[in-house]
């Protein structure tokens, strides 16, 4: 579980990001909200609940105890565990959400297979992430050694992720994007547009 340690150590710094980049955070929430449906939902890599709480996600799983304690205070039912070996019964959720989590998991195919296992037959996987082939993705990749969080991250492009989703058996992709400027220049929420290639934060919804 090598990628969880920085989140245990730098919980406050993680929390501070959302206040510093409030308009980026809001843009991301809007993009996720666009593709999320109602029904019982699980967030994998729930962290401190910064996304789960405003998006109305009931249940969260994460390996990091410091983050889970914060998520619990945000009224989310939390379970400590890892994405590659989810401790949930099959066909349990209408939605499984991962936000900026796919870059930190150790095994992407195992993560997608587990998400698929716990999804109901007509359930959806929703993935939000910084696109490797986007302005912010390129800069994050170049400077990732300087960040305690991103040092061990493996950023993926939308094309790579689509391939991995197809291999895992997912279909019917719906894609939106947001954050069209460098994050320091985003002062108010950015629009949410269909497709990908211009926005740095991309959300894919895929049917089980």
């Amino acid at each position, binding site marked *: 579980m090598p990628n969880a340690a920085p989140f245990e150590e730098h919980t406050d710094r993680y929390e501070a990001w959302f206040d510093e980049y409030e308009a980026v955070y809001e843009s991301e929430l809007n993009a996720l909200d666009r593709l999320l449906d109602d029904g019982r939902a699980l967030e994998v890599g729930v962290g401190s609940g910064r996304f789960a709480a405003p998006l109305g996600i009931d249940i969260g799983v994460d390996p990091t*105890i410091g983050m889970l304690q914060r998520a619990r205070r945000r009224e989310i039912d939390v379970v400590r565990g890892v994405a590659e070996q989810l*401790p949930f019964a099959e066909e349990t959720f209408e939605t499984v959400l991962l936000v900026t989590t796919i870059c930190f998991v150790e095994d992407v195919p195992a993560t997608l297979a587990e998400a698929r296992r716990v999804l109901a037959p007509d359930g959806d996987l929703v993935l939000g992430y910084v696109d490797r082939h986007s302005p912010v993705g390129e800069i994050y990749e170049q400077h990732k050694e300087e960040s305690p969080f991103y040092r061990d991250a493996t950023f993926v492009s939308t094309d790579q992720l689509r391939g991995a989703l197809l291999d895992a058996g997912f279909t019917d992709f719906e894609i939106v994007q947001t954050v069209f400027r460098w994050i320091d220049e985003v002062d108010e929420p950015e629009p949410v547009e269909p497709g990908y290639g211009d926005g740095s934060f991309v959300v894919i919804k895929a049917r089980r």
Partner: protein
Amino acid sequence: MNEDLLDIICCPLDKSELELDVRDRDDGEIVSGTLTCTECGEAYPIEDGIPNLLPPDMREETTA
């Protein structure tokens, strides 16, 4: 931990059902206890209201 979670959580290893043993309860929440896999017998602790369902080989560095 909300007791309703018991209906949907399972052993991360073999995905079998878990049996709950409550040690401490507060206002309907389970604060501490143990979840034991009905198939492989692995025991998973509930501490400070959070069930630890990490695969056992990932648990050691974090329980300190």
